[in-house]
């Protein structure tokens, strides 16, 4: 039985809660509120700020760089999530199948990319994608597909696809780990009885496993999307937003607007619009996953 809140108890609780609350308020709530204010101002960061109402917002909607950067961010976010989640589920299904000891070794290795900082992943792939001596072009040459060789990161047609693929490579391990964790909680009898009915593993997977791991699929989809839609590090390292502004994601454009062009008000507006778009997308994703609910 939980005890009733007494005055002493509440005081103790507040004392314990205060430091965390203060840190969160100072580093997140205050900046968000201040961002909200600056978004309605014209300000270069030094002189006096002038209130300009919704001017920044109307500028943003007619700013082709901003529209393009939104498209780039969401392209990377959606495409790499679409790659990472199914791949992660496939890997989890395989790890689950091969059994406990062998499976745990694969699991550890497949999770490694999730831990490596995006900046380092960017460097690794800059290496592998180097047009003259990078691995990817060498492999294509060996396979007799030399005509497919590209300067992958300098080519406006390929750069966003490549970044999205790398994003998928990075996040697949997370989906794998989370789906695997819910797979092991599925009662074994379910598999045995369907096996007696003659169902092979692929059919078992679609009819038993997939419906039951839906909650962790939801968590990993939302999480992968959040990480990848706001890609900054990867793009910054690999292309700096180039060629031209093709791979300029919103965070890159915002940082440029604020710290290169000293347009702090406009940068705050872009951040606000981007946050709203991102939160809407997440709400939509949650909706998509709601549908029917399966229970064991």
């Amino acid at each position, binding site marked *: 039985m939980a005890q009733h809140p007494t005055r002493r108890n509440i005081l103790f609780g507040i004392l314990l809660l205060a430091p965390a609350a203060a840190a969160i308020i100072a580093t997140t709530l205050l900046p*968000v509120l201040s961002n909200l204010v600056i978004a309605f101002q014209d300000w270069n960061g030094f002189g006096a700020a002038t209130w300009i109402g919704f001017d920044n917002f109307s500028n943003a909607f007619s700013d082709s760089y901003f529209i393009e950067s939104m498209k780039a961010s969401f392209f990377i976010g959606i495409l790499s999530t679409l790659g990472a989640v199914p791949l992660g589920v496939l890997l989890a299904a395989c790890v689950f199948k091969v059994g406990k000891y062998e499976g745990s070794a694969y699991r550890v290795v497949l999770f490694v990319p999730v831990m490596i900082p995006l900046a380092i992943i960017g460097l690794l792939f800059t290496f592998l994608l180097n047009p003259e001596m990078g691995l990817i072009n060498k492999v294509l040459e060996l396979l007799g597909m030399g005509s497919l060789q590209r300067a992958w990161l300098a080519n406006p047609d390929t750069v966003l696809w490549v970044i999205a693929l790398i994003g998928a490579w990075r996040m697949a391990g997370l989906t794998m780990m989370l789906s695997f964790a819910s797979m092991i909680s599925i009662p074994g009898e379910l598999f045995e009885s369907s096996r007696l009915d003659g169902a092979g593993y692929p059919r078992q997977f679609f009819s038993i496993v997939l419906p039951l791991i839906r909650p962790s699929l939801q968590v990993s989809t939302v999480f992968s999307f959040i990480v990848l839609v706001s890609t900054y590090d990867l793009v910054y390292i690999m292309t700096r937003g180039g060629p031209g502004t093709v791979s300029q994601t919103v965070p890159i454009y915002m940082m440029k607007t604020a710290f290169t062009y000293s347009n702090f008000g406009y940068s705050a507006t872009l951040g606000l619009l981007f946050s709203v778009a991102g939160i809407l997308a997440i709400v939509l994703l949650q909706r998509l996953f709601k549908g029917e609910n399966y229970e064991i």
Partner: protein
Amino acid sequence: MKFSENSERLERWITRVVLLFFVAITIYPIVFVTINSLKSTDDFYANVWALPKAIHWSNYSEAWFDAKIGQYFTNSTIVVVIAVLIISVFGVMAGYALGRLNLPYAEAILLFFLAMKMVPHESLVMPLYLMMSRMGIIGEHISLILPYAGWGLPIAVYILKNYFQSIPNSLLEAARIDGASEWLSFRKIMVPLAMPAIATVIIFNFVSLWGELLWATVALSTATMKTLPLGIIVFQSEFATDWGPLSAAICMVMLPLVLVFLFMQKYFVQGITAGANKG
């Protein structure tokens, strides 16, 4: 039995092949960079693919001393260790308060924390930069430690609150009957029991802060101090063709992460899955 031993074995082999293929894709970039970190520049350009002709350790010392990776390594260690400590201590306190003390509005407070986690960092860094430069602390270690701690806390509180709630009441009752104060039972019973969750919080935050780039770029834009990821970028843009030392630097960034993960992966996996299955 309809289902033969053979098709069972076949299924196992197919999954094994799929796994080995993806393990190769996953691990190759890391193996590649490790191999090249041991080659001399000539060796590197002669054949990127081959194993090194002779092991060339000097890449490591070159990166560590000449490219100042050692100095950045120290900076990152100081910042990340202190931030993770703050997150763990404050997180344990708040998680306990929300999970065990029956405070009014506990759910609402937790929701507020999680909502704060949802805010994208992109719209925080610029106002935070302005706040901190007005306070005159921008570019100092503290200007990294504070936001790192504040940004890591919501999830830490969430994980720890769930964990504290799962500890059976009987233990606390016993202590209470023996006359232990609220503070004593917190310190002597709850905190030691929560060690696995605390380990999860430590690893989770260590891994995500070790490579943090966005805020570091902004906060340290005019400072001479650099963190490791930032230092590597400078290295890359100044010595772009020096692949050997650059590879060595990359390996040195990854090493602590791999070590931390290997030592504590059991806890880490338990922790993230416990948190995820709640949702």
